[in-house]
């Protein structure tokens, strides 16, 4: 059974990445899992990287 889409939050600025919505403006299709976002992607609001900042899973 597929996992329900999750939301991930930048711990620096609060930006929320919603797996269900993706980021179409950045070429990330709706439904893209957090793990599948490229490692060099940065938070669009503050530039924090996936590696450098903890993204917390929130409901």
């Amino acid at each position, binding site marked *: 059974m597929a996992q329900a889409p999750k939301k991930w*939050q930048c*711990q*620096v*600025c*609060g930006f*929320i990445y919603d797996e269900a919505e993706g980021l179409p*403006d950045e070429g990330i299709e709706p439904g893209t899992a957090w793990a599948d976002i490229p490692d060099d992607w*940065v938070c669009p*609001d*503050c*530039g*924090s990287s996936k590696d450098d900042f903890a993204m917390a899973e*929130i409901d």
Partner: protein
Amino acid sequence: MSQMIPQDIANTIVNPDAYAAEKPVDEAFKFLRKEMPLARAEPEGFAPFWAITKHADILEVEKQNELFHNGDLATTLVTIDVDQKVRQMMGGSPHMVRSLVQMDNPDHMAYRRLTQAWFLPQNLKKLEGRIKDIAKVFVDRMADMGGTCDFAKDVALYFPLHVIMETLGVPEADEPKMLKLTQELFGSNDPDLNRTGVKPTFEEGLAAMQATIGDFITYFNALTEDRRANPREDLSSVIANGQINGQPLDHFAAMSYYIIAATAGHDTTSNTTSSGLWALAERPDDFKRLKADPSLIPAFIDETIRWATPVKHFMRSATADTEVRGQKIAKGDWMMLCYPSGNRDEEVFDNPFEFQIDRKPNKQLAFGYGAHVCIGQHLAKLEMRLFWEEILRRVDHVELAGTPQNSLSNFVCGPKNVPIRYKMQ
């Protein structure tokens, strides 16, 4: 060889009068973006610095927090004389306060984490009802003023002040004192706002600044004592009882934390709201559009933030030799992030000198970028959304009743007077 900015332009981009007048800095930055977007400035009395005027370069510098530090040199523009004097007063440090703004890692992240969760949207949701009630009270007061007022001085100043003071747990009776001290801090060059009421010499300005900070410290010392003995559900209790590596906060850092929350937490939002109303008073069709379609409010708010850009600059310094836009930046070089310029960058914004309430995309950078991105941005946007929803619901129309005036500052600057005539629904 690095480009040198013409002297008149360099003097303009540090001049508080120029920021108050707006057009001189707009023209100066237009010139720089076109002719020398990253070049050396040496205004009279200042140590040289790189002026970063392009949107892309501001983001590039701001996201590299190990390469470009906040705290090694002064974090805001100061003259050579002021810098020397501050260092004498502060045991060699260039900083009169030590808040998140003046910190680098490891301290910056450790101190920011203390209150970060408080300012995230999911926590702010709990405050929404209360902020909505406060917005209603302030629009009620506007209604009671009988159809004319100075929107900046009589209304916009007080709403964000009250919100942040309630968040901090400062009693309402102390708000006038907090407002006065904030104006003294950010309006130190402006005789209408500063401590002495006259244009200061640099020694007078410093002495006044020290006295203002001293007053803040006296106040927050007492608050800290109280919140350690009697913690409450407020931001002051978080700061008072916060620990870094198992120890209470360094006293100076704790006081600085209160000061930045108590000042940056409202002055910028007031400036932006006043700027927004000034813009709408000159654009009645946009006012009508917003009233008819409140779904436009979020985009409108983003545009007021871009338009106002209340924080005009922060400084950085390079921790290693590097290169930005083909310019060789040496270790130790001082750099000015010119936010109003970034928010008028022709390569990012179509018709940047037009106020467009439905501007999309709107990649405004007034909150900064990188690890130091404004911690209060979600609170600011929430306050503004609730305030504008209330104003637009209840004010039928508004027009200017005189000439608005901006405060005299090259740091935090915005409208101090917006005289209006208006009709309530």
